[in-house]
């Protein structure tokens, strides 16, 4: 009888912890969507990786990852799907980008946020996923 009660208590504690973690995860995810929409650094993250592609950073939160894009492109291929998607959110027109990329290195900056931790495949595919916010092209110094 006592063992049954202990098991029941443990189960309740586990469920409560899982529910709290779920709330925390969803809550911080939404907070971070607001943060990156405003171009601010994410909060409640527990790991950061930097990529040798121009300074892209990958932050890990509870159950999700955030990518702060800062990658450079030397030869902009305007037919590339990722470039096309990125251009939709860009402050540059296609013609402006084409003109500028003839003489300059183009930096893509912006933010991606997505559930899961498969960050390497996300950055391999490049910016421009459905979760992307604030994606734009710049001409700047390397990080």
């Amino acid at each position, binding site marked *: 009888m006592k063992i049954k009660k202990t098991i029941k208590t443990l189960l309740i504690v586990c469920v409560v912890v899982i529910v709290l973690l779920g709330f925390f995860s969803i809550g911080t995810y939404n907070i971070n969507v607001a943060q990156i929409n405003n171009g601010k650094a994410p909060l409640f993250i527990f790991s950061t*990786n930097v*990529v*040798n*592609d*121009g*300074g892209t950073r990958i932050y890990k939160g509870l159950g999700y990852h955030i990518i702060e894009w800062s990658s450079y492109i*030397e030869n902009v291929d305007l037919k590339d799907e990722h470039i096309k998607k990125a251009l939709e959110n860009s402050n540059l027109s296609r013609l402006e980008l084409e003109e500028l990329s003839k003489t300059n290195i183009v930096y893509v900056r912006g933010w991606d946020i997505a559930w899961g931790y498969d960050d390497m495949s996300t*950055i391999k595919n490049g910016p421009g996923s459905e979760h992307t916010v604030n994606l734009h092209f710049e001409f700047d110094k*390397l*990080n």
Partner: protein
Amino acid sequence: MKKAIFNRIGIALLSAVIICLSCSLPSYAATNNRIFFGVGIDFYNGIDRWQWLYELDTEISNIVKDKGYSDSQKVRKINADDALRVLRDEAGIFAVHSHGSATSVCFSNNTEITISQINALGANALSNVDMVIYGTCRAANGGISASNMVNSTFKKGAKVVIGFEELTYVDQMNQWLLDFFKSYSKGKSVTKSASDGLYWAKFWHFGNAGGTDKVLIRQ
């Protein structure tokens, strides 16, 4: 007697001329006095691409001694033109950790060594270089048959060229380079040293190789 004195003076003068001439030919001397050249570029946000060099004092000394190089140099800031000159004229081993792509490696002050510059070098221009390591993103993009930094450098005569096919993380690359040279300094082969580098890069990052598992070694 006088003839013997003149002969001695003549020999002494000839020796002095030879010594002076050899000192005035630094480019010739450079090809015979190669160095270990390690680069970990500092950019603007304080990310540490230098850590592997900081921890490799003894190992680099051993490599310099074993290979018969004249010296070693570790740099955190260097422009691309100077880096290319060192690669072409001075380096026995040239290893760089920086930003990069299939067609370029970034150096200080927004300068780059590009694939066009490597391709423009003369045939066998890098035949004095024992090993080049591009610790950047995508220097070996597309593998052995593609146009990339690794293949172009190898075609110019460098004996061993190493690069990575995909994106790489800074921390894992620091670890990979550190453990690669630790193993290499103990006389292990390039392939074995690369696999040691990968092992420790994964070990210290919970199994995440950070792109160091996609290595291309040309030798």
